[in-house]
């Protein structure tokens, strides 16, 4: 049993190191907590891209060849990083300042209280996730089913798509990040894939706090981390092995990384943002909305700084733009040419105006957004923060606000454009809003919490009180 446990740990350690190595390739200056937070998500991204690559060259993947390829990438990425003379940065372990300068006089009781509550919530939801097997309908007929078959057969286009006895659902044709990450757990010999979801959720919490700390105090950061984590519906879904919560990590880090590049001018965040947004759409195709939201944010910044017509401003965006869109294009081509699955009848192909549909959509979205059972107080606090921050709305983090509103309206517009058939469940607008849309809002929650926390007035209030 100890050998089996060591094998499992070894497999996941290689995934983590692959993710950290990718970060090293981008820059040697990522902090310890950034590496800790990004290691597994980027690592799973690499593993699932490798699975896709093996599929394209008609080679069956298995644990050995995936781990071998990962080790080769670890060596290659770090060699390239060392060549860039980042060796000293990569190999140094930077002790966080709060640890270096710790003293009893600096103990922050409110922080300890909120961190304690956060710790309890994390323990509870992780225990739930790991104790129970995947049980949700969407995962048993989609993500985890696909994962089991991928692990058993070593291919993405597998027997569940066979013409003789097809058993695939629409979710089996979702991009391979979620199913592939779950499949990796099965390839490692685990009986259940739920550990993957747990790791991704914990990574989100680490990165959310770490990114917040670039702007705010520890007390502020832990308060809004707690507020983000206890979003009821999102917390519940994080335990169910679905695709929404994994996507949340990449959407959040993608948008915020792009924002950090705009705000701080540090180019590593541009590349990190583009990779994150690429993996966001590698988890769910509807993540394309958040790529457009990121583009709106960049466009706003260019217009504000009169750089729209400056070609030099566009040049640095070419490679990141390609990185971001490549997974979406590749997967859409794969499912239509290889799997023979299309989503052509999901959306109305032309713009139209339907006042009744618009009114129904408005009512349904309002109902969902106002529900504290789904989102807690996030959508109530947000307008309050906007109001108290009104003096700085156009001066501070306006680009981020642009991304939030673009994402919300583009995502809602997507549901307006859907070709809703009859009143049967799964296609009627009402059922789509209360199932799919409700979960689709999850990526926006952490971004809103981030904006609220780092807004000038909220930040200054927290700095005054403790």
């Amino acid at each position, binding site marked *: 049993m100890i050998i089996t446990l060591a094998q499992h740990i070894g497999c996941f350690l290689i995934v983590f190191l692959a993710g950290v190595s990718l970060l090293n390739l981008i820059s040697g200056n990522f902090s310890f907590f950034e590496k800790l937070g990004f290691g597994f998500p980027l690592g799973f991204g690499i593993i699932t891209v490798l699975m896709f690559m093996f599929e394209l060259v008609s080679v069956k993947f298995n644990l050995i060849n995936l781990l071998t390829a990962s080790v080769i990438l670890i060596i290659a990425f770090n060699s390239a990083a060392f060549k860039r003379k980042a060796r000293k940065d990569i190999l140094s372990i930077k002790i966080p300042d709060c640890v270096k300068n710790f003293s009893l006089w600096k103990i922050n009781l409110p922080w300890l209280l909120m961190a304690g509550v956060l710790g309890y919530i994390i323990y509870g939801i992780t225990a739930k996730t790991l104790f129970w097997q995947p049980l949700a309908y969407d995962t048993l007929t989609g993500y985890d089913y696909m994962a089991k078959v991928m692990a058993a057969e070593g291919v993405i286009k597998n027997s569940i798509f066979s013409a003789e006895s097809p*058993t695939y659902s629409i979710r089996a044709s979702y991009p391979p990040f979620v199913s592939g990450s779950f499949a990796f757990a099965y390839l490692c010999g685990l009986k259940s894939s739920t550990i993957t979801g747990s790791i991704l959720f914990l990574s989100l919490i680490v990165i959310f706090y770490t990114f917040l700390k670039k702007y705010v105090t520890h007390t502020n950061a832990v308060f809004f981390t707690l507020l983000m984590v206890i979003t009821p519906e999102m917390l519940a879904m994080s335990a169910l092995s679905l695709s929404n919560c994994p996507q949340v990590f990449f959407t959040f880090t993608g948008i915020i990384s792009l924002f950090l590049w705009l705000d701080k001018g540090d180019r590593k965040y541009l590349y990190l943002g583009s990779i994150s947004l690429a993996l966001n759409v590698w988890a769910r195709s509807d993540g394309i909305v958040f790529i457009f939201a990121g583009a709106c944010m960049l466009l706003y910044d260019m217009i504000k700084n009169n750089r729209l017509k400056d070609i030099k401003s566009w040049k640095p965006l070419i490679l990141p733009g390609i990185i971001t869109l490549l997974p979406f294009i590749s997967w859409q081509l794969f499912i239509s040419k290889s799997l023979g699955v299309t989503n052509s009848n999901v959306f109305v192909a032309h713009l139209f105006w339907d006042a009744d549909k618009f009114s129904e959509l408005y009512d349904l979205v309002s109902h969902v957004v106002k529900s504290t059972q789904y989102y807690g107080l996030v959508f109530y606090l947000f307008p309050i923060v906007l109001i108290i921050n009104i003096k700085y709305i156009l001066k501070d983090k306006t680009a981020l606000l642009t991304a939030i509103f673009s994402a919300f309206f583009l995502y809602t517009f997507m549901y307006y454009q859907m070709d809703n058939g009859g009143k049967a469940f799964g296609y009627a607008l009402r059922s789509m809003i209360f199932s799919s849309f409700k979960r689709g809002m999850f990526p926006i929650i952490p971004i809103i919490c981030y904006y609220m926390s780092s807004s000038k007035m909220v930040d200054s209030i927290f700095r005054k009180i403790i």
Partner: protein
Amino acid sequence: MSKKHTHRNKTHLKTQTSRVNVEKAKDNNQSGRISILKNVLMFFAFAIIIWLFKEKNNGYKWVHKTLIGDNLKKIEQYKDLTFEQRYEVKLGFNYKYLEAIKNNTPDTAVILMPPASVVFPKDGQTDFKTADEGQSITNATWSSYFLYPRKLVYEDKKELSPLYNKATHVAIANNWGYEKLKYNVSGPRPKHHILPINNPPAQR
């Protein structure tokens, strides 16, 4: 020294002292020191905020009491269950039935599954959990999750399945299915069973 001069000196001294105190406070702030009173007051303030969130907001109340609280109790209650037993707790007889099929058929089996009218008869007398979001044995994809790599064919969808005539086993449910076998079953006939279609299972 005149009174005015002394007063001016005292005021100057006060100003200097308060300037030093402000500098000290700034230093303390920058060095991260927090006064004990502030620490304790803010601790209680945030404790009240957390309590208000937990008690007055239905969503957060549900997170605390149901999502986390009740689930931790259930985990404690079921902590000694095996992997398979945990499935049975959540999925009931549906899982038990499929598990029996899995344990009594080879991986290459093609299983003839009962129609929905047999699994969920009109009189409601059934051991199977009522279809919940399609999580029933009548859902081929859902059932395949537990029975993979076995193939499934359904009696009520036989026209759509080229594998119907290649079925190797019959999943007997609510006494349906014995008539599909190519041999007579002597002895007791369990209500639910899994049997090979062509030859009776070897006697032990």
